[in-house]
């Protein structure tokens, strides 16, 4: 749109509610025009973070900067930020049109401009037919579009969305997701989007900030978050079925699970001979009926679940631990004895005590 968009920066921001830390010394920088997703389990502080950016919640310590200006002291004319709420928060006494118009009217936007903007937004979101309806006469999906529309008509530089899709059904959610993405491509607003749905986060975010217990665990592109999770929490939180984490020991250049060697470790002399957590995504486990070599690990098929798109195998290892694998097709049946192989480049290695990613195979 040729319009400069805003940056958002959180500097050492903490938030306490009655002595319990909700956000702990958070640093976060959202670039102009970026679509950033805050992802995390419920209660991790992602909504609080969003509300602090919106100015709805005071920060206990630190500062929130919009375009370099402190939110606490800057003049807020109500045009800088738009927000969509999880329950839509449509004014129940106003029609769809009036809902879109209200903020513009209060801030004395010219009537002509107002009408033009609203018509355009209603057109984009297919709301024109409902202009005179009250929110109580709309379906969930329609309400959600009105809520997004109310944010859009403001033409703000920052658009905040708090789980806007979690109250509508799955089929509609996918469609709404596509619409949001398209809108961002057109308007290039700076968007901060809160969700607990990882698929939504992966699909929408330029970058994703994974949060837990008030701390950003990792902030990166969807690809890196999936393939190189910064720590065990991120690894376990992202991806379904969950990543397999096994405890391994490094001995004489080989990774051992109990007494069975899993992998030959090439040129990682700097790794100490000790315990590690090895992570491998279910789709990266190679399964076969016969052992491929010394490193093939015997496993027994505990259960097979056919999801149509893929088949999920639950495998029981010799030490009793269960791991999951997904394959496109297989001739296995339950209780079959099979062999699994790991490829070093497909695995992620975590430190045993700090649970941080050691990025092996990435340094050389």
């Amino acid at each position, binding site marked *: 749109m040729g319009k400069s968009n805003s940056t958002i920066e959180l500097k050492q921001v903490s938030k306490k509610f009655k002595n319990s830390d909700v956000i702990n010394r958070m640093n976060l920088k959202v670039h102009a025009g970026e679509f950033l997703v805050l992802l995390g389990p419920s209660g991790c502080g992602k909504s609080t973070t969003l509300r602090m950016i*919106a*100015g*709805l919640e005071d920060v206990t310590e630190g500062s929130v900067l919009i375009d370099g200006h402190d939110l606490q002291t800057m003049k807020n004319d*109500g045009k800088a930020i738009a927000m969509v*709420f999880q329950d839509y*928060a449509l004014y*129940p*006494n106003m029609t769809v049109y009036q809902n879109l118009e209200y903020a513009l009217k209060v*801030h004395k936007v010219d009537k002509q401009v107002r009408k033009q903007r609203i018509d355009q937004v209603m057109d984009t979101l297919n709301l024109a037919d409902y202009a005179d309806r009250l929110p*109580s006469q709309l379906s969930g999906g329609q309400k959600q579009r009105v809520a997004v529309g109310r944010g859009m008509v403001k033409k703000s530089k920052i658009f905040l969305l708090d789980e806007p899709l979690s109250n509508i059904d799955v089929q509609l959610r996918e469609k709404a997701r596509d619409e949001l993405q398209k809108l961002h491509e057109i308007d290039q607003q700076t968007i901060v989007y809160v969700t607990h749905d990882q698929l939504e986060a992966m699909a929408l975010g330029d970058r994703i900030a994974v949060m837990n217990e008030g701390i950003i665990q990792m902030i990166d592109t969807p690809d890196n978050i999936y393939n190189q999770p910064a720590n065990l929490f991120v690894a376990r939180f992202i991806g379904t079925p969950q990543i397999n984490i096994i405890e391994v020991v490094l001995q004489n250049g080989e990774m051992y699970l109990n007494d069975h060697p899993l992998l030959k470790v090439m040129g990682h002399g700097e790794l100490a001979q000790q315990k590690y957590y090895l992570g491998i995504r279910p789709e990266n486990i190679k399964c076969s009926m016969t052992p491929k070599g010394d490193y093939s690990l015997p496993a027994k098929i505990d259960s097979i679940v056919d999801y149509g798109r893929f088949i999920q195998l639950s495998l029981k290892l010799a030490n009793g631990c269960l791991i999951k694998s997904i394959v496109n097709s297989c001739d296995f049946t339950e209780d079959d004895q099979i062999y699994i192989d790991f490829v070093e480049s497909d695995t992620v290695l975590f430190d045993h005590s700090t649970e941080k990613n050691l990025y092996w195979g990435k340094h050389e």
Partner: protein
Amino acid sequence: MFKRKVNLWHVLLILIVLMAILPILFMISNSFKTLQDSYSSMLSLIPKNPTIDNFLTLNRQVNLLGLTWNTFLMATIVTLGKLLTGLLTAYAFRSYQFRGKMLIYLLFVATIFVPFTIVMIPNYLVIAKLDLLNNVVGVALPQLCDATGIMIFLKTMEKIPNSLIDAAHIDQIPNRKIFFNIVIPILKPSIVSVGAIFFINSWNEYVWPTLILKDKGSFTLPLALQNYISSEGGTNFPLAMALSTIMIILPLLIYLIFQKYILNSISNSGLK
């Protein structure tokens, strides 16, 4: 079995409705009876010799229009006062965090438990000092605020989702506009029903206006009615009934007009 149960309930409900409506029918029918008929057949619902003489007599003896106007004025001032103060106070409790909020709220609520008899004399002295005796304003003034209204409105406002107010804050809508454009319209059903109750209570009020209003020209309808119940000439029953009938017309109209809201606010809070 179930059907029979329902029928029993209906019988009970019909009885209750009859108990409620009979005195009113009785009052209306007697207001159209002559004095003799009312003594000889007071309980019959159909007057033997229907007459409107009672109303004509009343019209000669008292200024009906003036009485109604006085009562209306007083009830309106009291109702609007209670609604405005109640809504504003409730909104303050709903939206602002301040020190001692709970204590102040409890003090408000505690005033409900102070009997009128206790505040009657102090209030009278204040009104007398303000030189507002014989004036409906004097009657209305001590009643402009009512903790019941605050309580009901606060409970209703607490049902408004926070996100709705947050959404308005994001758009930098001033509090005054949030109050008038968003909160008040949402609360409309409960405002109307609480307002109707305030109005009818005030309309029927007797003790406090008796203290303040001495001059017949400033009387309200209940005070005038008193004259026909125990005046020096003995009770003229049909006249008293006729005045009572006149007295219920306005509250009845108000109820009929706002019936939809009143029933609505009883069955739900108006928020979906």
